[in-house]
């Protein structure tokens, strides 16, 4: 069993409170994590300046090189993690064991996180729109137009309250170190693995350890302490969390994606050619990500589209996590899958809603102490159906019949919208929609993310403020 101490600006902290992180199915302990209380975080926050100073002592270009190396190490090296040496396979096995995610999915996330680190220069170039990191490091400079530009860093360290259920989200905070800001992380209670391995890889690559805090412990207490003591933080949660922090400039909140595929009237008659794309958008990564499509909108053929998707998604079975074909993750919180299924059954009883995967057998699969939900396709005969945009933490999609001219009012907030249309007028409306974050024009699966473009809010805009700076002649 691996022992993970909380890290306080690079220094492991021996706590008297130790939690066990257990195998999702057998209950066997996999890790012992040393937990801390909110007071420690608030006290440590006063030293965040030191983290920034340690990083500022290294030129940005050098930091970028070290992060690239960290990406390679993260992906393929055996690293000192906690009190053990962790190989990439150990990492994947541990992550799968405590989260219930299939091994193949964990492996894919390793590649994704490593990609971001290995391409950090390109990603930063896109995030900064080509601005030299030297200007961010110095605070001001000449962009080349003979005009001084100045960007004021809004924090010494970014706080992040990380989830347990989606190891893919780590790509969002990985670039921060290159911006010479520290990281204050609260790992997810059943997924401490990625933050600890990233920390190990970065330190091994030469990033100063004093740039990092990793705090394990009770979500409310620690999460609250991070959000109140870091001047900029990101948090991941459900709709309630999103509502709680809406409008708070100090907090970037990441919640459900409500991502969608829209079929324009000009393309919908060719729907059969897009079924694989629709299924991929719903099912990739276990359907757990904010990138996965939760609704498909079209003005006609929706019943056939739903039937075709159900025919592909409905038969998918629960497989052991180490089976390379496993695509469904377990719900490890007792009663969660049952409660979700109850709510879906309730939604499916509404007028105009049809459960299209019903002919393919039971959706709720009890495997005590965990449970699974097999993919669900619901057809909504009207865009006024109350549950048309519901998102769940497994492959579940609503296929909604909706006239094209009503789509942009019916879809609501949408993290990723893949719009399959060549209608220029509709495309213009899509571009102008303020409900859509990432817009894919044409047949692009929703989870196909170009990491070279900002995802879910631009990190640079969150961490810096553009301001005026004048230097006397």
């Amino acid at each position, binding site marked *: 069993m691996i022992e993970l101490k909380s890290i306080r600006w690079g220094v492991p902290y021996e*706590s*008297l*409170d130790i939690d066990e992180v257990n195998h999702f199915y057998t209950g066997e302990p996999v890790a012992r994590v040393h*937990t*801390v*209380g*909110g*007071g*420690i975080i*608030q*006290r440590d926050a*006063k030293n965040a300046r030191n983290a920034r100073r340690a990083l500022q002592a290294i030129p940005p270009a050098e930091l970028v090189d070290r992060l690239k190396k960290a990406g390679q190490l993260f992906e393929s090296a055996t690293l000192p993690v906690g009190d053990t040496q962790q190989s990439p396979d150990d990492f994947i096995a541990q992550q799968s064991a405590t989260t219930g995610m299939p091994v193949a999915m964990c492996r894919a996330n390793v590649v994704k996180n490593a990609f971001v680190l290995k391409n950090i220069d390109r990603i930063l170039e896109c995030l900064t729109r080509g601005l030299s990191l030297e200007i961010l490091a110095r605070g001001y400079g000449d962009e080349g137009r003979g005009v001084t530009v100045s960007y004021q860093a809004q924090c010494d360290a970014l706080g992040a309250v990380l989830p347990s259920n989606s190891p893919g989200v780590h790509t969002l905070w990985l670039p921060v170190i290159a911006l010479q800001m520290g990281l204050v992380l609260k790992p997810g209670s059943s997924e401490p693995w990625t933050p600890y391995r990233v920390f190990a890889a970065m330190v091994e690559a030469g990033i100063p350890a004093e740039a990092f805090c990793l705090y394990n412990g009770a979500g409310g*207490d620690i999460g*609250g302490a991070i*959000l*109140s003591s870091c001047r900029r933080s990101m948090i991941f949660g459900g709709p*309630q969390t999103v*509502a*709680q922090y809406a409008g708070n400039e100090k907090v970037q909140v990441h919640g459900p994606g409500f991502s969608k595929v829209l079929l324009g009237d000009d393309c919908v008659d060719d729907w059969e050619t897009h079924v694989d794309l629709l299924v991929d958008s719903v099912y990739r990564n276990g359907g757990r990500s904010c990138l996965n499509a939760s609704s498909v909108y079209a003005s006609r053929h929706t019943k056939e589209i739903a039937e075709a998707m159900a025919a592909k998604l409905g038969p998918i079975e629960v497989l052991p996590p180490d089976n390379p074909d496993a695509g469904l993750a377990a719900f490890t919180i007792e009663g969660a899958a049952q409660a979700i299924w109850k709510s879906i059954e309730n939604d499916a009883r509404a007028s105009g809603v049809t459960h299209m995967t019903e002919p393919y057998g039971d959706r709720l699969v009890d495997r005590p102490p965990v449970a699974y939900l097999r993919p669900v396709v619901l057809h909504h005969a009207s865009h006024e159906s109350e549950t048309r945009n519901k998102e769940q933490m497994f492959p579940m999609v609503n296929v909604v019949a909706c006239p094209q001219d009503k789509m942009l009012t019916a879809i609501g907030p949408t993290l990723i919208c893949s719009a399959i249309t060549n209608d220029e007028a509709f495309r213009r409306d899509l571009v102008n929609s303020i409900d859509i974050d990432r817009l894919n024009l044409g047949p692009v699966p929703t989870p196909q993310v170009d990491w070279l473009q900002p995802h879910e809010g631009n990190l640079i805009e969150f961490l810096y403020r553009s301001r005026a700076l004048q230097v006397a002649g």
Partner: protein
Amino acid sequence: MTASSTSSPPLPAAIDQARAALDAHAVETVQWHFHESTGCPFWLDKKNELNFDPLTEIRGFDDLKKFPEFQDEWLRGGPVRRWVPRGLGDKPVYVFETGGTTGTPKSRIACEDFRTDYSLFSDTLPDKHFPPGSNWLMLGPSGPRRLRLAVEHLAQHRGGICFCIDLDPRWVIKCLKKGWIDHANEYKKHCIDQAITILTSGHDVRCMFGTPKLIEALCLQLEERGTSLAEVGITGIFSGGTEFTPQWTKFCVEELFGGPPEESGIYMTPTYGNTLMGLACSEPVTAANAYKITYHAPQPRAVVEVVDFDDTDRVVGYGETGRTKLTTLTKEFFVPGFLERDEGEREPPHALYPWDGVSGVRPFSRLEGGTTVGVY
């Protein structure tokens, strides 16, 4: 008896003596509460429902198991006079409440109990760190709780004067439930600002009561202002609750206070109690014993047992985990076997307290989620 006394185990004779005193006290208390001339209307009424006669069949502490489990619902709603023993009818009566964020709070009456409890507790405080005659700060909930009056009495009992800063936990819980985290934090800051004003106004405040969250916030705010608890003159603190864990104590002692009492000059002792019971004291808490916190009830006035989760009449073995069960045995209030919303490990008798104790007190795991802890 002081908290710095020996930590060696008690002599068997001391244990036997304590047990005999408890048995005698249990009989005496039951006689008082179930006698027509002295008992309270609630218990005299309840007597009719019992299948035994408490006046003749309670011959020792163990016989209290004959009573049905005490239901805390009995404490909700009135008339509150039904709890006042006839034998105390002419005394001024206080009512203290617990809970009450939503719905009707539980209430208990008291005349002198809180003073007696805190006078006894006073005997366990080392004079070196709680200097007689010095002034106190009470930083915590007052309102319908006994805490303010009790701490004020403690200060007066030790020859001091008590400054009080109020915090309404019902409002804090409401804020947290509504997601108004900023409001809750601002309210906490408002309390801390008042406390710092008192501590820096030349009132010779040396001792204080504070809840763990408020002590932590106070220390952090003092640090922010470039000073510390020691610098503003505090030498003795008592605190309590399930938030007072070994890890929190370690953090406080090592980082917020600046070391153990011999280095920082600050001595802190945990307590465990509630409106129904008196104040359970702790064995000395030190780094050498990994800041382990072990409470012993103020026997014979109150008893804490650690019982099996399912068979709540069975005390678990030493070192084993169980639910805490309180019995209160005073002339003002009789509570036989009340199951607390906490659990912990049963501990053997201690030289200072020759009867069982409980360590590792934390919210009862089977009820977790239903209780909001650490709000103030």
